[in-house]
């Protein structure tokens, strides 16, 4: 770990010196840019690492920092952010009754701007009654099943992801602050173990790319810290909002490993752990990524 850290610094200098070797950098990003949305909503995209990281990262940074200037700009104004269309769509669903109880989200939670403020920032979160750590998607499905008598949503499909975006927007700018102690600790430890396990034929852990190599290019991809404060994320690549666990699945697949399923205990634990690595960054979803 330390070794890679040191060499990183050395190589960047080397690459800088050998001008001819600047083969990478498809679209340079301004890693020092600040994110202010709609001219007045300040987003913390870099801050001190939480204590539980034990110095593994000197500073935590949002994935927004590593994107190209053009992609960064799309997130600076809600009229330009293509993810906001899906927030509007979810607002319609919010008020539409579904299931055997004839209720909608609004029947219990009224105005999301009031009732959902701060929610995204603390999820995944321990649920005392259920005796488990719940992701936001799990909580939404619990409401659908037990309070509305409606079917669960697939957690990587648009009904769910759009609803998560609507809920995220109500916390934009608030610091991520998930609890990792008490009853959540066991799940957190499990997620941490997964984060550092080198899966698949390429034997790569999340940490190999997102802790040891953020800021470096891997072929044309500019590696970020793999933070999830920006989720759901609108990706220019597939022109829709993407679920956190769908991203996890893609990254594990890219190590030539057998992936875990979205909604599995493993990915739920990983979601808590990765969220905690971003404690202190602002909730940013829906973000824009490439």
């Amino acid at each position: 770990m330390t070794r890679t850290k040191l060499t990183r610094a050395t190589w960047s200098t080397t690459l800088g010196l050998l001008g001819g070797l600047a083969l990478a950098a498809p679209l340079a990003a301004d890693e020092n840019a600040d994110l202010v949305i709609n001219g007045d909503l300040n987003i913390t995209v870099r801050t001190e690492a939480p204590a539980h990281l034990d110095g593994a990262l000197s500073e935590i940074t949002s994935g927004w920092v590593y994107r190209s200037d053009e992609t960064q700009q799309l997130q600076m104004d809600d009229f330009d952010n293509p993810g906001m269309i899906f927030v509007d769509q979810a607002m319609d669903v919010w008020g539409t009754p579904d299931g055997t109880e004839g209720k909608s989200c609004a029947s219990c939670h009224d105005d999301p701007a009031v009732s959902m403020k701060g929610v995204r920032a603390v999820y995944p979160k321990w649920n005392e009654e259920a005796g488990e750590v719940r992701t936001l998607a799990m909580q939404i499905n619990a409401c659908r099943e037990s309070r509305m008598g409606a079917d669960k949503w697939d957690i990587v499909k648009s009904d769910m992801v759009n609803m998560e975006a609507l809920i995220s927007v109500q916390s934009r700018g608030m610091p991520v602050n998930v609890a990792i102690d008490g009853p959540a600790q066991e799940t957190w430890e499990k997620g941490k173990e997964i984060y550092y396990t080198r899966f698949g034929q390429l034997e790569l852990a999340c940490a190999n790319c997102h802790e040891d190599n953020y800021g470096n290019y891997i072929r044309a991809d500019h590696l970020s810290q793999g933070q999830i404060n920006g989720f759901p994320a609108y990706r220019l690549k597939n022109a829709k909002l993407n679920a956190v666990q769908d991203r996890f699945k893609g990254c594990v697949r890219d190590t030539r490993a057998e992936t875990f399923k979205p909604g599995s205990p493993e990915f739920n634990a990983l979601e808590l752990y990765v969220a905690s690595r971003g404690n202190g960054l602002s909730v940013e979803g829906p973000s824009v990524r490439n």
Partner: protein
Amino acid sequence: MTRKLMPMAFVLAAGAATSLAAAEVAPSDVVYDDYGAIEAPLTETAGSAEEGAKVMTNRGLGNCVACHAVTALESAPFHGEVGPPLDGVADRWSVAELRGIVANAKKTYDGTIMPAFYKTSGYIRPGDAFTGKAGTEPLPPLLTAQQIEDVVAFLTTLKE
């Protein structure tokens, strides 16, 4: 005339490939020395630097440039910076050492991020290539014995 000769050439080439396959060192039989080097070539056919260059830039094969910058391969776009630039690597390492690094770099650098290209088992949740589905060990190695020799032949040209 060329038309008539073509099939013949193919038959010869195919025949040669089969007999050579028998002389290959299987991934589980490779002998590494204490420092991770492999003295003996993995095949009887000398590596081709030209083929090696293709393996290094092809995303479906070595994709070495995903992590390493190589000036001689500049025509292939987007070289990464996860590993050190490979220019001059033949001045730093012997052929046996280079062969060891490409086949399984973990024997040279403990815990390195560089994948092992000639290894078939001992993985955690091995997959079936990039499908995300389970794979069964032994997996096909990331590169064949001949492709390793080709890459090594290319690397030995990288002198400063």
